[in-house]
């Protein structure tokens, strides 16, 4: 059976059945076209505006269909046996609606056939439109849900780390304070009364730390063993300190120099370690809830320049190529957090270059404003990120850094990602050997 036997185009059909001036409803935004469970014997044609169908008796009313110009509403109740509307239909915008309320059985043939044929066609179209709508809604819900789960995870991690950071902060604070105290006491009780020359050895250990690598120190030992009768361990300390045989006159003096240098060096290491611990705690804290202020009128270029200034001491011989677009539009953002994003990205780039001892090490930082977005990219010519780990780089505690080169628990990119998504921005990374680029796009909000 060809149900579309009677070919009538929609325009013709609409003008025939849905153009009666007496059967026209004008709705303001928020007006209800149909109440839920209302008795309805009309088919509505949306001429202008937009209506939305809800199930108002559910706990979280969500749209179940949308009626845009050209679509039909009230189809279910018109054809159903009890003629009760299952949804509430509300105008989203000022709308113009025409309706048809006759009994199709009252029409004469062949007009009745034609009418029914078209209605069937319309029902199928509506059905499929609503199915698509439902599918899209489900998809969006899933997306929102995933985002929620992700941010929930980060929030939990944040709370956990805030607690951890608090606890550690107290211990580290006490260690640092006592270390300072100890240093003062040592100075008063042991160091002050020594000769200038011996004091200098203590100062070197305390302020300069280790002077020679373990290999260099071993080589430097011959100089000592030839000169004086000294124990192996004293010679070891003297060479580590970079003290030369000519700097002391006797074995006794050499021994004292070695011991005082070592005392200073122990203090030096403790101070460094306390500093590193404080740094780690700081980066854990940042995982927690952000407490920095948002403002309109943040200049992205300024935040980039601040990040570069912070990292100046780290970047060393690496050449930084800044290509910042002039007259960039100010955005609503959290200035401090943006600086942190760039610091993390640039720091990662520096570390990837430093660890791999590349030649002509370069980092290019670009800001650009295109299509109502500001994009900032940080590109390095390091060895790149291996394909098998590129998906994992945003996970907390993921780090490829080894040894004592960098502390930070591998939270850097997790923090970056959180901040970027708080700014409704997006992040992309592309990487191959010789070119790794992180790009952050931030939308300009109206």
């Amino acid at each position, binding site marked *: 059976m060809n149900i579309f036997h009677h070919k009538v185009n929609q325009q013709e059909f609409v003008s025939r059945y849905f153009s009666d001036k007496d059967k026209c409803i004008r709705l303001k935004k928020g007006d209800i076209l149909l109440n839920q469970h209302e008795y309805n014997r009309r088919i509505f044609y949306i001429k202008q505006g937009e209506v939305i169908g809800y199930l108002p008796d559910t706990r979280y009313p969500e749209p179940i269909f949308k009626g845009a110009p050209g679509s039909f509403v009230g189809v279910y109740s018109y054809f159903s046996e009890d003629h009760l509307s299952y949804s509430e239909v509300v105008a989203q915008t000022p709308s113009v609606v025409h309706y048809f309320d006759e009994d199709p059985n009252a029409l004469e043939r062949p007009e009745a056939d034609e009418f029914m044929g078209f209605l069937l066609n319309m029902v199928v179209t509506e059905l499929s439109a609503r199915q698509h709508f439902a599918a899209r809604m489900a998809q969006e819900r899933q997306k929102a849900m995933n985002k929620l789960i992700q941010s929930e995870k980060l929030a939990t991690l944040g709370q956990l780390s805030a607690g951890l950071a608090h606890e550690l902060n107290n211990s580290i604070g006490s260690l640092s304070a006592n270390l300072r105290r100890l240093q003062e006491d040592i100075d008063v009780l042991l160091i002050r009364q020594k000769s200038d020359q011996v004091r200098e050895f203590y100062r070197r250990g305390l302020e300069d730390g*280790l002077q020679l690598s*373990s*290999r260099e120190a071993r080589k430097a030992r011959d100089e000592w063993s030839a000169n004086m009768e000294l124990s192996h361990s004293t010679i070891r300390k003297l060479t580590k300190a970079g003290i030369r045989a000519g700097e002391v006159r006797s074995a006794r003096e050499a021994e004292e120099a070695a011991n005082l240098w070592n005392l200073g060096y122990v203090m030096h*290491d403790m101070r460094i370690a306390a500093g590193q611990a404080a740094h780690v705690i700081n980066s854990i804290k940042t995982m927690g809830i952000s407490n920095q202020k948002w403002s309109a009128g943040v200049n992205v270029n300024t935040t980039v320049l601040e990040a570069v200034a912070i990292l100046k001491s780290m970047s060393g011989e690496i050449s930084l190529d800044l290509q910042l677009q002039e007259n960039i539009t100010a955005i609503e953002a959290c200035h401090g957090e943006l600086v942190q994003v760039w610091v993390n990205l640039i720091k990662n780039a520096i570390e990837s270059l430093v660890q791999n001892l590349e030649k002509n090490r370069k980092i290019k930082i670009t800001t650009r404003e295109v299509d109502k977005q500001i994009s900032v990219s940080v590109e390095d010519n390091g060895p790149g990120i291996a394909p098998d780990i590129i998906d994992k780089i945003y996970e907390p505690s993921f780090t490829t850094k080894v040894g004592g080169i960098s502390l930070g628990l591998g939270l850097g990119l997790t923090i970056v990602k959180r901040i970027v998504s708080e700014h409704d921005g997006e992040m992309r990374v592309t990487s191959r050997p010789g070119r790794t680029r992180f790009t952050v796009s931030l939308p300009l909000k109206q």
Partner: protein
Amino acid sequence: MDKLYVLCVDDQPEVLNALENDLSDFENYLLIEVCDSGNEVLELMEQIDTEGDYTAIVIADQVMPGMTGVEVLTRIENDPRFSAVRKILLTGLATHQDTIQAINSAGLDHYIQKPWTREILNKTISKCLTEFVLDKGIEYEDLLPVLDQPVLYEALRKKG
């Protein structure tokens, strides 16, 4: 008497310095050397061997750039000249996988977790040193103050 060495390898100088300080009880009996990479410790072992002395114990950190601790210890394990060397992994961050590999491939003798205590470190060194001298049949009379008495006693009892 031949010289006995304890070698420590870690890429962080502050850790090496702390180890050296903590091992000072052994200074009159052993030579303590520190290295900041796996390559350096392997070279040093070569040199010690050439001079006719012994590497008794190697203490290696796991997480180092270049060669990891387990890699260094595996190299030592696979060299027949160094089969008696006692191998200690000292680490604060070893995965389960690292640990399995350390036991299976590197013939690990002992595992010390960071942060260590001086007491545990000294006890471990004593025990490993005792096992080494017994293994090698080295004269140990001069070393008695730093040897592990129960281990020594047990060995002598077995010998009868």
